[in-house]
């Protein structure tokens, strides 16, 4: 049943003009980021009269292409996922969905998977750019793959955060705003607080290790745990109305 809901959510996104528009704009932005990164790298190499080395270009692409892409997703994911539950409330579907013979976990996880897969498809399209480059240049695939895995985990976490906020609100735009503000605050906290707790709590800080090519189990566990906690909160919230004894407000 979770798979069915995930497929349905994917269909909903694929039918949404806004999702297509967002996906198109993201591809345009990613293409521009990629080409500008490559051009700047070639210019730097020409100045230094050095050969294009595999680790040099890969690192440069990660810093100037994948890292900005992650920042773009801090804005794009809340906008793409804000409707996940709040949209059902706004469109009067919520009570029908609550009355279906589904568990809250099936519903919330299904929606999460559907929305995540849609964004992964957008990321996958942008990897075509890297694939084209790899015909002529030997890239550091391991480094790029590690950074890519970090980006996917990062997107999952923002999706779960937005889904949770979406379960709290009747207005999708509020969910998007709350998610965006949370991510920006955590990002700023990571950038300014040194090695404190705020940095540990920030997804951006954990993404940084991936971008450096370090596959640290603590970072992997962090992303999985945070995503799991947010989904659990979303499940709890979804069931709040239909489970006896939970306090709720209309």
């Amino acid at each position, binding site marked *: *049943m979770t798979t069915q809901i995930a497929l349905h959510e994917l269909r909903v996104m694929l*039918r949404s003009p806004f999702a297509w528009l967002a996906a198109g704009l993201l591809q345009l932005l990613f293409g521009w980021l990629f080409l500008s990164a490559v051009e700047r790298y070639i210019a730097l190499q020409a100045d230094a009269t050095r050969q294009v080395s595999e680790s040099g270009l890969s690192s440069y692409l990660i810093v100037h292409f994948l890292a900005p892409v992650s920042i773009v997703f801090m804005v794009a994911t809340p906008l793409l996922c804000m409707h996940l539950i709040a949209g059902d409330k706004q469109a009067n579907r919520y009570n*029908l969905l609550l009355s279906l013979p589904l568990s809250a976990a099936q519903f919330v996880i299904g929606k999460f998977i559907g929305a995540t897969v849609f964004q992964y498809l957008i990321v996958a399209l942008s990897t075509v750019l890297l694939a084209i480059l790899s015909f002529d240049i030997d890239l550091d695939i391991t480094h790029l793959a590690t950074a890519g895995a970090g980006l996917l985990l990062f997107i999952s976490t923002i999706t779960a955060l937005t889904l949770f906020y979406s379960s709290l609100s009747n207005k999708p735009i509020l969910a998007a705003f709350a998610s965006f503000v949370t991510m920006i605050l955590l990002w700023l906290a990571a950038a300014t607080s040194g090695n404190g707790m705020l940095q540990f709590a920030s997804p951006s800080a954990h993404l940084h290790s991936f971008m450096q090519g370090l596959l640290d189990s603590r970072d992997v566990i962090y992303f999985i745990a945070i995503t799991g906690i947010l989904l659990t909160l979303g499940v709890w919230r979804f069931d709040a109305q239909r*489970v006896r004894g939970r306090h709720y407000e209309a």
Partner: protein
Amino acid sequence: MNGPMKTDTQDPITPYKARKRSVPQINVGSADEWTENSSDWDAPLAPALKSEPTQQSLAMQAEDLHLRYGPTQILSGISFTLHHGDTLGLLGLNGAGKSTLLKALSGAMAPERGSVHIGNNELYQNPLAARMDIGYAPDKPAIYPEFRVIEFLKFIATMRRIPKTKINSAIDNVVERCNLGEVRQRVIGNLSSGYQQRVNLAQAMIHSPRVLILDEPANGLDPVQLIEMRYLISTLSPDQATIFSSHSLSEVSAVCNRVLLVHSGHSILDSSIDLLSNSSNATFDLKLAGSNEIDVAALPGLLAACRIKSNHWMVTGSCMTAAHLNTLLVSRGQKILSMTKTDNYLDSLFRQLGATEQAKPGPSSDFTADSNGIDQ
């Protein structure tokens, strides 16, 4: 847009009338059977409801439902039973708690207290099994506007756990019954509100539920579509029961064989439509004086009694005269302020409830507009 009514009879109401006639006759019990717990709104239900149903015929049983939003009590001790073949009209002014009650019955909103049995499953103890037997159509069509009709119905069929091999036939069945054939491949968002309401009905019926819960299904329908909807409900299987909320007395009278009247979250009347509309019965609007309150509903010979407020009752009795009622009350030490015979029980009751709400201080003005919406 709206296709002609698809019926196999000249009179779409005829099958329904036949169904109404098939409802078992209600036994009028003795007053002693129903005088307990009669202190407040909860009390005055007609003795007719004390007919003993067989367990097999029971489609739904709601007991003592209480529900609140924050500090506001929305439902207070609502109980009723629904048998296979019943069409229960849920009536009440705006804000009475009708939609909330339907949400609680559909499993979308858990009550604080009380139970809802659908067949052998309690809705909040065995929710997944119980929900399999419920079809719920919210007041505003719960649709995905970007989907085609057929795609939306397929999604709902999957969610209702209809086996893959039977999904297409289930869809064909509801598409035919709801007369959606010519729009089945169209995008729902481009359909008229009448067709969207039909899609809403179709999704509720697709799995042939034991209990069909329809929250104001007449919203957005034109007169022809209203007749079609009545016909649709009339052609439901005798193994199914329907709960149907409406502001329209005429709608409920035409479609339902029972009526449950909700006011301020309390069930104040649960009776058969036949009983209320029987011309041999007499209905009185009764106002009593003094603080010596008695339970009027406990008087012998009454078929239905409803307390509008303290010492203000609407009562119906079979072949009852004003003199007889006067004797009964005076012999119990009651002083009668006024006693008016009325023609239409539900109509009069609604007017009285509307007047009561208007007389309340504070936000009662809401009800002024609401009572205007009642179809007389």
